[in-house]
């Protein structure tokens, strides 16, 4: 394995990280939106979201990715590997994020809402000033956990041909007949990223717990 090969894997890492970041950035607000639909008990929409979330949480990302990659062009939506990858990551992570947001919404103290209402705050203002700041604080550890899970499933994108870390490593391994070194380089890229997220999650949890006792 040459330095050029390491560079190729690092270029794959840029793709992996970009797609992960897009998935995370899209998945956070969509998950919140879904959670709000469940929370507000919108007729029709709320049970639909419940089914969507349950289904998505049970679906392996490979299966979802293959479904989108092969079936969307069939119904006239042309998608390449990258688009299919981003859509599947976003759908997957938004379903898990929805559950994290929803759990926090369920625990939200009602008296605060009533107090804000009695102060004459309207719905939007109430949500922005009272609910959201506390919601973010409570949900943060769960959301970071979901981010680390998302990063860990990204090698799946290689299955449909996205040239990410894993695909670069597989190609180099196949060309050099030495599969182990490129795979270890790939793992050496993932390890610190996931470990940083897991440590961040622990840090946030501890600070949160500390705040509760203080």
């Amino acid at each position, binding site marked *: 394995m040459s330095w050029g090969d390491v560079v190729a894997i690092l270029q794959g890492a840029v793709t992996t990280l970009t797609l992960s970041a897009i998935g995370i950035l899209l998945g956070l607000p969509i998950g919140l939106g879904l959670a709000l639909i469940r929370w507000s008990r919108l007729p029709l929409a709320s049970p639909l979201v419940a089914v969507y979330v*349950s*289904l998505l*949480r*049970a*679906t*392996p*990302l*490979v*299966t*979802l990715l*293959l*479904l989108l990659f*092969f*079936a969307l062009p*069939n*119904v006239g939506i042309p998608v390449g590997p990258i688009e299919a990858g981003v859509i599947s990551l976003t759908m997957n992570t938004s379903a898990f994020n929805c559950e994290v947001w929803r759990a926090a919404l369920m625990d939200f103290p009602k008296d605060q809402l009533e107090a804000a209402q009695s102060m004459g705050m309207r719905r939007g203002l109430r949500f922005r000033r009272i609910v959201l700041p506390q919601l973010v604080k409570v949900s943060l550890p769960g959301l970071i956990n979901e981010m680390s899970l998302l*990063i*860990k*499933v*990204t*090698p*799946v994108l*290689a*299955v449909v041909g996205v040239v990410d870390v*894993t695909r670069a*490593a*597989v190609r180099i*391994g196949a060309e050099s*007949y*030495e*599969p*182990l070194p490129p*795979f270890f380089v*790939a*793992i050496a890229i*993932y*390890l610190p990223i*996931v*470990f940083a997220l*897991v440590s961040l999650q622990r840090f946030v949890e501890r600070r949160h717990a500390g705040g509760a006792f203080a």
Partner: protein
Amino acid sequence: MHDFGVVWGQRGLLFSGLANTVVLSVVSAVCALALGALLAPLLMARAKAPAFAARSFVDAMRCTPFLLFAYIVYYGLPSLGINFDNWQAGLAALVLYNTAYMAEILRGAWAVQPVQPIEAAHAFGFSGFRLFRRIVLPPLLLSAGPVLGNQTIQIVKDSAFLTIIALPELTHAASSIQSRFYVPFAAFISAVLLYWLLCLVVEAGVAAVGRMAEARR
């Protein structure tokens, strides 16, 4: 609708894929739980060396994507002279990877268990493995039930990754139906619904264990 007819015509293939997914997941979950139960005491051991080794293994696995790990086991280990067929490689990867998660789950549940029953067991002359098996493990399994159930669902979903090493599980079956008859939507939606069904079964099982734990209290 015609496409679903095609998939129904290939139901034998789909159901054998489902059966393989179930076998893989159940065998892996049981083996990983057993090995995890052996590893968990090491994580909590007072001796530094074994605790460090166990902690390193668990953390490494928890930071590694399963797909990369499966690639290493299947493509990498043969170059070290260890040869597998795809079933052995897939099972070994699933079991080893999830052993780390199971051990961590059991350790987490163990850390919050009350110490009095264990002290009482000491007083009654229990020690070592017998103490662990009779006194420590049963309440641990009951209280960790929901998390262990989640991990089992994770194993079902991880087993889908093994399609990349051509293991004939559910996703692989759906893939081959779609490539033969070009019915992508029907083939993969059928697989997704079957995965959903599996998860609902696991969740029902967890709920049953939860009721059992409640009755024991």
